């Protein structure tokens, strides 16, 4: 990011110009992040802006020696999205008690490109979409996802299984004819 110091100074002074520059810089990446969790674009934007508001309010806490500014912002926005997911009460579903990690080791999703992945995410319901994004995009393991979303490991596994079941017909249609 160019002029990062100046942008931070402007944000600290609550100047709209600097805030706008920062916003426009990180917007594409963060909007994609939010879209992974929320199918509704309006909700995704709302979450992104809520997260950015936190960024502007807490930017004095940013310490450049601890990491990159973008990573710091990314973490805040992602946590905002996860908070929103927690508040939106994920529907309880039947659990899968099989702890065999091999169950998810081979998945057709691995063969998808990022662009295609976003298209197929719309097939999933919001809770499954969130679990899928956390698992396949954000790299969280099942236990961490359970902790983030306040649900059991079995529930997370069920959502991942649901992801595969939902996407299988689509993948077969487009990729495994």
């Amino acid at each position, binding site marked *: *990011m160019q002029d990062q110091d100046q942008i931070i100074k402007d944000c600290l*002074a*609550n*100047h*709209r110009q600097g*805030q*706008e520059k920062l*916003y*426009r*810089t*990180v*917007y*594409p*990446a963060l*909007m*994609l*992040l939010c*879209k992974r969790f929320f*199918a*509704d*674009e*309006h909700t995704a*934007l709302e979450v*992104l*802006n*809520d997260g*950015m*508001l936190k960024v*502007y*309010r807490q930017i004095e806490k940013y310490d450049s020696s601890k990491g990159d500014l*973008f*990573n710091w912002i*990314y973490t805040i926005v992602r946590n905002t999205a996860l908070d929103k997911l927690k508040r939106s009460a994920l529907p309880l579903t039947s659990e899968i008690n099989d702890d065999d990690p091999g169950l998810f080791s081979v998945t057709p999703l691995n063969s998808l*490109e*990022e*662009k295609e992945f*976003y*298209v197929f995410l*719309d*097939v*999933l*319901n*919001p809770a499954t979409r969130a679990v899928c994004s956390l698992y396949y995009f954000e790299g969280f393991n099942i236990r961490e996802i359970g902790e983030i979303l306040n649900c059991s490991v079995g529930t997370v596994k069920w959502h991942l299984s649901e992801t595969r079941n939902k996407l299988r017909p689509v993948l077969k249609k487009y990729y495994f004819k």
Partner: protein
Amino acid sequence: MKEQEKLIKENESPVPLPASDEAWSAMRRLLDEHQPEKSIPVYTESGSSGSAKKWLAVAILFFISSLVTYQLLRPADGKRSQTNHDPSKKSGSEIKSEKHNADFGMINGKKDQSLSSSGVDTNEQSNLSEKEDRLGKQKVPVKTKTGSTNKGGKHGRKSIGENTSGDKTVIPGDETMAKVDDNSTTKVENNTGRVTAMDNIAQKKTNEKSKDSATAANASEQKIDEPVDDWRFAGGLFWTLPLNAISDYETWSAGPNGKPQPYRILLPGIWLEAKHERHLMTVELNPFAYGIPKQKAFKYVEGSQPGADTLLKTYTSHTMLKSFGASLGMGYQYNINSKLWLGGGFQAIVWTRAVEQEGIVYEKIPSNSNPSVFTAESFTYPMKENWEYFSKFQLNLNADLTYREKNWQTGIRTGISVSPFAQKDGPAHPFSASLFFRWRLFYLEKKVADKE
């Protein structure tokens, strides 16, 4: 994460995203709501910051209140002169002095010169003697030319001066005639015993004139609005109250930041005027001008966002609520009645800031057979990106009806923009109506040479 950083660098997205302009607009609204921007911060010694504009507003309010207080508490010029020179309120020493002067005048058989030392100049004395002569022979046309009668108190001295003239013939019965005069004059006359009947009549007229001018505070100020030959210049502060959208408090009181700032109505402009006979030219400068155009949308945006099981359609309209800037106006008015003036003029305005309202109607169209659901919301915020839809310069033609009093004026103004304001849609030629109030702070007079 590296992919995201790469995305930032390349500014590419694998899927279509909402325009960043719209996203930033929403973000800015959120910021304005939760974290308002402080404009022109002023740092004090203690480190706390404030708004320079706020201090400026406070200073202006203080200045105005000081002026108003001064105007209210200050005795009128005429009252002051009345107090100082009212013949009926002369001190004993003054009366004695006048008596002495009268006697002195009698002895010398000349016009009493010592009176000039009591404040009346010798030129005036000579004028007085001329008038005296006329008073003794004919009816004096009492011309209340304001420029020359701005000496209410001096009239009182005139009467004394007239009465103290030495070259008078004593006619029996003078005392009887003198009784009809006011006390002070009578005392002097009785002492001198040299006033003729004709002089008494003239004296009476002069005293009446003197009384009129004295009791009417200041002749010049009292008759300021009467058509005269002289040029008069005045100036002061003025305030306007727009009648457009007066029932809509949110719009009417909105400040440049979109938040209510009702105190802005107290921010004044400056006016100057030049008057000659029944004609009046006015110049107005208002650094705090604002306009409330008709609320007509100038921009429409329609969008759709496909979801998992619904299609969300948005209909966004942008409307200008209020504009802020500086105005310079010139006008001409003609006296149609004693205190009513009718006229018109033009006003050039440069708009620098504005407040717009964004209204959004959401239509959720479910994929199943359920009917659409409409919801609406609106946001008010400072206009920054949509000035391309408006002209920042505006020229108005106005018509004014003014009621003028001594120290203040009030009236109504209607106007219409002759230059296009909205460039495409929206209020192209906004109509405005406002009440105004002017407070006179200074007054100058340039006399025209007396034709007599």
